C-alpha cells in the first residue's frame, strides 16, 4: 500500500475532533453541530454530532498518519491516490466530497 492519500469515511466520523487536535501541522479543519434524535423505545432523545465540513489542507499535510492512528472509529484511512497537483494552493484543501470520492475512483 502506497501511503499517498488520507481518505475520509464520513459515515464513521463522529466529529470527536481527535484528529484535528493531534495533527502536528494543524492542517485538518472540522465543523460540526449537535442534533437531538429520538430513537424508538428510548426514554430520552439522544444527542449526536453531525459532520458539517471536513477539510484537509494537503499543501500543509506531512502525511505522518497520526490522524489515521488516533481516529477511534477508523473514519480516516490510508489510500492509494493519483498525484495531487493544482495550479492554486487553495485547491489543495480538500473537503468531504473530494476526500471520499477520490477514494472511490481509485478503487
Amino acid at each position, binding site marked *: 500500500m502506497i501511503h499517498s492519500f488520507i481518505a475520509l469515511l464520513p459515515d464513521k466520523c463522529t466529529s470527536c475532533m481527535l484528529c484535528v*487536535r493531534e495533527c502536528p501541522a*494543524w492542517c*485538518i479543519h472540522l*465543523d*460540526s453541530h*449537535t*442534533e437531538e434524535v429520538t430513537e424508538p423505545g428510548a426514554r430520552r432523545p439522544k444527542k449526536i*454530532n*453531525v459532520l458539517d465540513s471536513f477539510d484537509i489542507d494537503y499543501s500543509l499535510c506531512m502525511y505522518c498518519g497520526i490522524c489515521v492512528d488516533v481516529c477511534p472509529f477508523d473514519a480516516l484511512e490510508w489510500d492509494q491516490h493519483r498525484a495531487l497537483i493544482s495550479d492554486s494552493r487553495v485547491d489543495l484543501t480538500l473537503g468531504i466530497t473530494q476526500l471520499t470520492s477520490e477514494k472511490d475512483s481509485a478503487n
Partner: protein
Amino acid sequence: MMNVSVTETVSPEKWRERVLQAHDHGFVFFDFLTAIDRDSGVEVVVRLAFNDLSESISLSTSINHASLRLDSIADIFPGAGWHEREVGEMFGMNFVGNDMQQLLRHEALGLPPMRKNVVLSARVVAEWPGAAEPEIKQDGRKVGNPSRRRQRPPGVPENWLQS
C-alpha cells in the same frame, strides 16, 4: 553490544573533574553531548563509553538559567568541541575554555531556539483548528456550545497565548 549503562548526576563544579575521571577509568569513547531545557535550568548530558562499547556512562548536570556557564571538556574529548558549540548556539550555554563562535544559526534570530521560552509566533498567530467544538444548532442557527472547557493546542505553553 552495550552491556552496562550507568547514569549519574554531577554538580556543575565537578563536571570537568568527573568527565576526566571517567576518561581515565576507560570511558575513552565520546558518543555525544547534548542538552535539555528544563524548568530548573539547562541540563547538559554527555555519554561516554569503553572503546569496545561494553560499558557506557551518561553524566548529566543542571545549570540554572541565570549562569549558563560550564567548563568545557573539549580538551579531554576534542570531538566534544563541536557538540558544545551546538549546545551553545541552541541553548545559549557558554562552555568556558571552548571557542564559542556561532556555527549555523542566523544572528538575527535572537534567542537560542531550543529554549522553552522562545515563542513560536506561527503557533500563536495561527488559529488552532482544534479549539472548535460541535455547536448546538436549531433550524441551522447556533444556539449554544456543549463544552465550556477551553482547549489548548499541544506544544503551546499557556504563557505564550497571553501576549
